[in-house]
């Protein structure tokens, strides 16, 4: 089961975990990215490329399903304005055993970081700036090639 969502609304963990667990397998690994509450950001805005985003996330999830035996691969990404402490992204991988779930979860978030067309803009006080891409995101994604 692959589930992809690009949404304006808040990410509900209980709903997404229920989806990941519904497959009946024994192991669920998840990663949640949050707007950091510790670095002075007041608002984080996520822009994306409608249509291309969903296609890119589906490709990332399909890549995980092709590599590991998974009963679920889930990617939920929020877009629009959000605030410190709120969830930006949630990914989950469900498998029979933990090795596949943990590795597939890392794959989903690593590939998403480089392969999906999202852009973050941070506002601190009156100043607003686009977040720069991190070189080590590419290193993290490259280890799966």
């Amino acid at each position, binding site marked *: 089961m692959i589930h992809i969502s690009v949404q304006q609304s808040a990410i509900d963990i209980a709903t997404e975990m229920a989806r990941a667990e519904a497959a009946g397998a024994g192991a669920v690994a998840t990663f949640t*990215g949050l707007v950091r509450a510790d670095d002075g950001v007041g608002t984080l805005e*996520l*822009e*994306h*490329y409608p*249509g*291309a985003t969903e*296609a*890119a996330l589906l490709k990332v999830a399909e890549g995980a399903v092709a590599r590991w035996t998974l009963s679920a691969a889930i990617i939920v*990404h929020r877009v629009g304005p959000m605030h410190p402490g709120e969830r*930006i*992204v949630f990914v989950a991988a469900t498998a029979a055993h933990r090795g596949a779930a943990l590795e597939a979860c890392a794959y989903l*978030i690593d590939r*998403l*970081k*480089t*392969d*999906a*067309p*999202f*852009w*973050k*803009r941070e506002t601190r006080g009156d100043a607003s700036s*686009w*977040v*720069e*891409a*991190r070189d080590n995101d590419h290193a993290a994604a490259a280890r799966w090639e």
Partner: protein
Amino acid sequence: MTIRMVYFAWVRERIGTGEETIDPPASVVTVADLIDWLAKTSAPHAEAFENRARLRAAIDQDFVALDTPIGAAQEIAIFPPVTGG
């Protein structure tokens, strides 16, 4: 051949629009050629495209390298490196 251009993040902001329709000459073969040609059309385009190393592109919603031929593209996107997740 008309192409729908779409722009995101600071590329969109510098150009001043999220999309436009263009009709490049036959001498424009690759995405890089297209960027060079667009940069000559206005000061905002020139500013948005001043550092090619910071630009990424997609043809018909597939990520491509800048030296990719545009072929019969209907939609080409130009944007900064992605920062989601």
